[in-house]
């Protein structure tokens, strides 16, 4: 049925990357490059009384030092979201207040990294230390220190209560529903800090072009938001800034953040010289993180296990600044609650400030935290009513043709969009998983003995595909003399393969081959607008834009072909990079058509721009099964087998889609088991290295089986939905359910570290 999509064509930038040729931010040389470094706060909360840079200024090679007392004070958010951003404007290039250990106090640009580091040590700062909030549960207490008491910040939900964001939505009557429920479940979890750890840390280089415009070469997910936010903070119009995203070394949400580029840009504007900022691995851990959350779910069901009432309370910790504060918390509700049908639903979310590292966007975006609770609650319900966990989910999950009031009630920091499910292959994925993991052999923990005990657990999940009515993408396509096409997209390939997927979509629509498409992406001067790569949007939204542009170009090709072949447009059929006249049995190649249009007669450039927004955000679905082994002497959990079936609609490139899921799962496995922040008494993260913060390597990999269950999403390009985020939601609840099945204890704090499990086992006797 398809020719170019739904095919695992080779990644268009694959060989360049595999041969080390592809250019990342730092792979280009700049004459006279300056190195930027930050002086960071040693205290979690305090007022800067004075900054003395006189000793540092004297150091040869120090070109500029920027800090609160010599820079402008523009409130903004670092969240790279569409305008107007739903995140509070509570951040400044420099403020007179510091709000966590690691907060930016001064920025130095010097002729070498060593000189910049030396100069940092010579700056003297006098602080007045304030009491700090180092736990999300303390943030809203009456006597809690106020973290954002500055006058000019805005968009903060309640400054006096340290609330960056808050929302409550009600459908039906949850209070009554819970009171009258035959079966009630009430369960809470506390999820933890974690970091994306892209292997390429945050990096940007800024310089002036020959016209004096500021060029920002940066490892970003959101080039157009970088341009807009830098223009605001640097007090210059967007026209003076060009943002270029070259190849980037992974992102996962942490590069949906605009918070290095304007420091480097400011230093370039002051010195006229190119400036590079490259975070160290240790700094990376305090760049942006995942929002830790307290999540409580109360569920009311009847004796058969049918759910009637769900109440979810969330307290999210955004750290010192409210980047994505409101929207990540919203998504805990909006990406979890619609999965189950219920008459009464309430979501009550709060996002608090603390004097801890700043959270931001991270793959899963709140859904991951929500599912850590919700999918354990479903298992608790199953046990209470004596049903199988698979059965309880099958009888309650949303079905094709159905909707949930939550889609409309909870959007992206505001009301959402009503969405009816038009594609779902969840039950097929469940049935496959049951076979793969030998679910029928599962026995309760009470029947298990010995030091090593195995357990099986599962869960089901959804996510979204872009932000409906908000995310806009566009694409430009033109033909060349030889019948090849340039495809220019604002969409941002983070390594996900979107350049390949979008080329495939263009090729399919234009009736040509993917290798006939020359893609160029993410350059604010050269490519049309796209909100960027986040919210699982690129295939679905940007793919829609590419398809729209290609349809327009196709019409132009047909018109020219009809002229050349002396026939009607209706008589023209495009196939295999050629136009055929069905009637005359004649044909012209796209090369002939390109040359004709450019040089011969009625000349014009065959080309078009297409834009796309979506009215809905169709969810991909996923079923997960896991088998683990628990060492009851040490508390260590070993994952033996992980099985994951995903419905992402049509997989435009199945191999790349599988790769997205596999990557998300392994990221999620170490999030569930080994990744943790160790803080000292001042809230300083103490384990900022790969030696002390354990992400999985190839030896930690369990047997991992991913299978795609293609449905057809009528609103997506060639039936596609998203696939990039959903995979990370599975590991915590599936392993937690398997842990219960193995040894009879429930995990409510994460990661599921040996000492924590052992402690629980000992308490149980």
């Amino acid at each position: 049925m398809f020719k170019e999509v739904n095919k695992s064509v080779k990644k268009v930038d694959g060989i360049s990357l595999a041969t080390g040729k592809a250019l990342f931010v730092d792979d280009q040389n700049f004459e006279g490059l300056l190195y930027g470094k930050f002086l960071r706060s040693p205290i979690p909360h305090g007022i800067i009384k004075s900054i003395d840079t006189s000793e540092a200024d004297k150091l040869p090679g120090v070109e500029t030092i920027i800090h609160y007392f010599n820079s402008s004070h523009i409130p903004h958010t670092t969240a790279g979201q569409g305008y107007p951003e739903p995140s509070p404007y509570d951040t400044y290039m420099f403020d007179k207040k510091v709000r966590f250990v690691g907060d930016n106090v001064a920025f130095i640009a010097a002729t070498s990294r060593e000189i910049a580091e030396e100069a940092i040590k010579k700056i003297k700062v006098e602080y007045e230390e304030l009491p700090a909030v180092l736990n999300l549960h303390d943030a809203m207490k009456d006597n809690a220190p106020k973290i954002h008491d500055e006058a000019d910040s805005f968009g903060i939900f309640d400054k006096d209560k340290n609330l960056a964001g808050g929302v409550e939505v009600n459908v039906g009557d949850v209070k009554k529903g819970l009171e009258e429920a035959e079966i009630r479940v009430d369960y809470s979890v506390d999820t933890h800090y974690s970091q994306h750890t892209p292997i390429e840390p945050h990096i940007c280089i800024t310089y002036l072009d020959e016209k004096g415009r500021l060029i920002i070469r940066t490892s970003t997910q959101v080039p157009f938001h970088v341009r807009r936010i830098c223009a605001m903070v640097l007090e210059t119009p967007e026209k003076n800034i060009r943002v270029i995203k070259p190849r980037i070394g992974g992102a996962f949400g942490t590069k949906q953040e605009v918070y290095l580029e304007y420091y480097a840009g400011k230093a370039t504007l002051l010195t006229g010289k190119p400036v590079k900022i490259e975070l160290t691995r240790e700094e990376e851990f305090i760049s942006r993180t995942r929002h830790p959350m307290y999540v409580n779910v109360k569920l009311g069901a009847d004796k058969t296990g049918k759910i009637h009432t769900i109440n979810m309370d969330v307290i999210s910790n955004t750290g010192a600044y409210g980047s994505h504060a409101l929207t990540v918390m919203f998504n805990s509700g909006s990406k979890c609650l619609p999965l189950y049908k219920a008459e009464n639903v309430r979501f009550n979310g709060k996002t608090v400030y603390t004097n801890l590292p700043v959270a931001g966007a991270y793959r899963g975006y709140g859904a991951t935290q929500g599912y850590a609770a919700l999918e354990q609650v479903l298992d608790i319900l199953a046990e209470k009513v004596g049903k199988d966990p698979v059965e309880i989910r099958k009888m309650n999950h949303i079905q094709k043709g159905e909707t949930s009031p939550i889609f409309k009630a909870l959007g992206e920091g505001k009301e959402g969009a009503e969405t009816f499910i038009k594609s779902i292959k969840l039950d097929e994925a469940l049935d496959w998983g049951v076979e793969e993991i030998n679910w029928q052999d599962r026995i309760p923990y009470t029947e298990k003995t010995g030091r090593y005990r195995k357990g099986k657990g599962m869960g089901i999940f959804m996510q979204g595909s872009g932000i409906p009515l908000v995310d806009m993408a566009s694409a430009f396509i033109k033909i060349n003399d030889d019948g090849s096409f340039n495809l220019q997209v604002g969409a941002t390939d983070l390594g996900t393969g979107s350049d390949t997927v979008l080329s495939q979509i263009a090729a399919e629509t234009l009736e040509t081959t993917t290798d006939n498409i020359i893609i160029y992406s993410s350059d604010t001067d050269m490519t049309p607008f796209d909100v960027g790569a986040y919210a699982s949007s690129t295939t679905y939204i940007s793919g829609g834009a590419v398809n729209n542009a290609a349809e327009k170009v196709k019409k132009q090709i047909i018109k020219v072909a009809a002229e050349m072949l002396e026939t009607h447009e209706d008589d023209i059929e495009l196939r295999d990079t050629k136009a055929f006249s069905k009637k005359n049995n004649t044909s012209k190649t796209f090369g002939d058509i390109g040359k004709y249009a450019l040089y011969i007669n009625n000349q014009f450039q065959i080309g078009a721009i297409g834009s796309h927004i979506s009215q809905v955000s169709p969810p991909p679905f996923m079923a997960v099964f896991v088998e683990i082994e628990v060492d009851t002497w040490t508390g260590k959990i070993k994952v033996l087998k992980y099985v994951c079936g995903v419905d992402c609609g049509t997989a435009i490139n199945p191999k790349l889609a599988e790769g997205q899921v596999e990557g998300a799962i392994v990221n999620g496995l170490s999030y569930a088991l080994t990744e943790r922040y160790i803080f000292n008494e001042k809230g300083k993260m103490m384990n900022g290295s790969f030696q002390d913060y354990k992400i999985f390597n190839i030896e930690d990999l369990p047997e991992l089986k991913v299978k795609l269950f293609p449905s057809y999403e009528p609103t997506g390009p060639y039936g596609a939905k998203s696939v990039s985020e959903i995979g990370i939601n599975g590991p915590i609840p599936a392993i937690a359910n398997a842990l219960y099945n193995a040894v009879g204890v429930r995990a409510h704090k994460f990661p599921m570290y040996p000492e924590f499990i052992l402690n629980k086992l000992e308490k149980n006797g």
Partner: protein
Amino acid sequence: MKINFNLNGNDRTFETEPNEKVLDFLRRIGLKGVKRGCETGDCGACAIILDGKIINSCMLYTGQIDGHSITTIEGLGDNQNPHLIQETFVDEGAVQCGFCTPGMILATKALLDKTPNPTLEEIKNGLSGNLCRCTGYVKIEKAVVESAKKLGGKNV
């Protein structure tokens, strides 16, 4: 100081400072396929082959390669003429962002040169010093298996 060493098959002489790390040195002379991921020897993005062994170049000073042979990703192949392992990584979908890829491919080459028919355990061990956050390693493992098969037990 001057150092003499074999770089990707050619004997070369370079001027360097004694405190210069091999990672910085290689990038300075234009070999940008050597990536900076952590500078603490933990991620493998800067891995090179030194006398047949995979090693992180951020952990070496330039004096330590004086008189030795090193191979970087640039020594394996290029766009026009890629090495079989490079092609196989692309074919198997083992490349996502590509930042860890040079190190992964060099680790694969070092492994297969020494152990042409590796067991799964030997593959895991051979690549255990290289972190990847994109792929989940599944397709990387497959690419190593396929590379070994295609090479048919021969060194390359």
